[in-house]
């Protein structure tokens, strides 16, 4: 499996990525009416967090290649998960590459570094993942769209789910950084039971023996945790070893397709919340899952789905309006007239999604770990910050 993956790396690496047979087609066609749109994708392609960025890119590029729109050009760069590199890349894309749209950032801290500057310079930013509360509330901007969610959404849904399930007391845990603090706040916003204990772990922590002992001791009805990436893998393996019989719920990040294989069977049965799952029953989704697997030889993750939807939203807007007319283009984006792999999809007043959020369960399908929808946690959920947004 590693062989094919590295093959994809090389293939898509070129910084100037002219889509499909773009040039040839546009020359023959000649009659292309729309203005060309240049997209700058800044995402994480190296280092420990690379798997998220690679999925984002692959999902996005799948939609781009399927559309074969010769007017769309995508430039891809690696931010190394460092905010100062991300800023530098956005400067480069805006100042020398003259892009119209930026996208692709995985991490909230990188988004906070890039988005305010980019939107103020009149560029569109379409978020494929990170959507910090600052950018949804007072810091919202007419050129900023989140296609994924608002950061709190999945945590809120977990809170709603815990309430629905009648968990009387919950142990809640997240790393001690802004996204972690937002996570626990989001959970509590919709959880009506009692919080048995609230624990902040260290960012990047890998050993959770002490926390697991506290959880066991708390005797809570359930555990909610938000530990993205390697932290979640470590925690779940150690949790399974501890053999504690307590239901676990968390946002999808620790159970998305890119890391499930690394956790192994320890993840089976865990409930997690997401706005997308590969078994959502609609035509766009069925096609996406099949095409992604065919092209990349692995199942798509949440990040891949978000990347795919972002590209489709952009392509739909390009069909309706010229990028040179920013107001018309913005309206076309707001209309969001595309078939989302999530099914229903629309934008709220702060240009963040209004969508259903599901509860998924980790299951083993023919020996492959994946997620299956078991319930709907929230319907038509917008976000908690829309009111603060003055646009």
């Amino acid at each position, binding site marked *: 499996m590693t062989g094919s993956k590295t093959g994809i790396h090389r293939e898509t690496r070129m910084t100037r990525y002219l889509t499909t047979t773009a040039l040839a087609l546009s020359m023959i066609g000649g009659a292309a009416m729309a203005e060309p749109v240049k997209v700058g994708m800044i995402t994480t392609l190296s280092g420990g967090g690379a798997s998220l960025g690679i999925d984002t890119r692959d999902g996005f590029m799948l939609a781009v290649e399927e559309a074969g729109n010769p007017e769309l050009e995508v430039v891809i760069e690696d931010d190394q998960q460092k905010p*100062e590199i991300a800023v530098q890349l956005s400067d480069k894309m805006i100042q020398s590459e003259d892009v119209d749209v930026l996208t692709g950032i995985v991490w909230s801290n990188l988004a906070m*570094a890039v988005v*305010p500057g980019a939107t103020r310079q009149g560029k569109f930013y379409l978020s494929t993942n990170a959507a910090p509360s*600052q950018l949804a509330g007072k810091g919202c901007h007419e050129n900023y769209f989140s296609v994924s969610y608002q950061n709190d959404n999945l945590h809120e849904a977990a809170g709603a789910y815990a309430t629905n399930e009648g968990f009387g007391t919950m142990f809640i845990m997240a790393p001690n950084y802004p*996204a972690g603090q937002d996570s626990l706040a989001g959970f509590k916003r919709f959880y009506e039971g009692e919080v048995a204990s609230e624990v902040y772990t260290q960012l990047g922590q890998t050993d959770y023996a002490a926390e697991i002992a506290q959880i066991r001791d708390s005797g809570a009805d359930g555990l909610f945790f938000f530990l993205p990436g390697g932290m979640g893998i470590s925690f779940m393996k150690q949790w399974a070893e501890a053999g504690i019989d307590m239901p676990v719920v968390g946002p999808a990040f620790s159970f998305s397709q890119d890391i499930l294989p690394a956790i192994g069977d320890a993840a089976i049965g865990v409930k997690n919340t997401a706005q997308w799952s590969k078994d959502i029953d609609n035509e766009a989704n069925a096609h996406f899952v099949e095409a992604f697997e065919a092209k990349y030889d692995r199942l798509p993750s949440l990040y891949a789905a978000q990347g795919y939807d972002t590209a489709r939203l952009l392509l739909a807007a390009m069909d309706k309006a010229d990028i040179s007319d920013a107001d018309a283009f913005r309206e076309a984006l707001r209309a969001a007239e595309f078939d989302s792999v999530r099914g229903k999809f629309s934008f709220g007043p702060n240009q963040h999604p209004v969508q259903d959020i599901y509860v998924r369960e980790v299951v083993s399908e023919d020996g492959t770990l994946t997620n299956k929808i078991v319930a709907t946690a929230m319907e038509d959920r917008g976000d908690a910050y829309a009111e603060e947004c003055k646009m």
Partner: protein
Amino acid sequence: MSAAEIPAPRARRAAPSRETLVNAGLGLALLVFGLGAWLLDEPFLITLATKVAILAIAGAGLNLVLGYGGLVSFGHAAYFGIGGYTSGILAHHALNYTPMFEWPFLFEGSTSMPLIWLFAMVLGGLAALAIGALSLRTTGVYFIMITLAFGQMIFYFAISWPAYGGEDGLPIYVRNGFPGLNTLDPIQFFALAVAVLFAVLGLISMLAHSRFGLALQAARQNRQRLMAVGIRPGGVLLVAFVISGAITALAGALYADLNRFVSPSMLSWHLSGELLVFLILGGTGRLFAPLAGAGLYITLEHVLGGVSDYWQFYFGLLLLGVVLFARGGVIGFLTGGRHG
């Protein structure tokens, strides 16, 4: 530790040496690159050149203690980050019209670079005073590690301290101002950074040739002899450490304005490592080593980064080669081998 192996910078008064010519060439190259980018209307290249200048200032701060004083500080990101946060926090309060404190007098933050720089240098110097006073009790590898420990302490504090964004960092929406300049114009900001760089290099050159500089170099080479003439090496090293911290903090403030953003990554140990890398790439102990090293690093990052996702692999090989086989760094190469 065998610090004496680091080639010693020597005071020179004779006709311009080969190194002086190389230094002049390096300074000129930076200016020409920036101005060339401006003429070609390539603002991003100006931004890159500005980044080189600013990182070179940070490296110059480190060079004072490392190249001249022989102290391997593995925690200089701390002062860089403190400078960055000084700029970010002052601007944050000024832009949001939220006073920083009201007692003993009303202070609403500031967006004026000279004032921010002053604050950054004072705070960076104070931090270096506290950290240096404790760290200088140790030597050798213990010194390397205790400076790293203080750096990590501040890093974790910044990540989990929610008031100024924690790990998310703090955006500065509009670049801070400098009287008489439009700092938002890339070429003007570049000119400002280069002016600061040359001023800092001039200051360091002056210090190196002063009585203080000679005592500093003596502290590296032979502490006993220094004590014999009645100078406490600890005091000399501490003063150098404080000046070094202040200079690196100044670079941090500029860097925050370059990116219009500060975050704890400015405080990470990787950054401390990168500053050390600049010096060794450039040629440890040479006045212009930070400029040569930062220039080479940024160039490689862009050239190699465009070629392969795995560019750090090649960069690692190159760095290894320089450490093992080309100890004079870029400047050593350009001046034809060993020092002097």
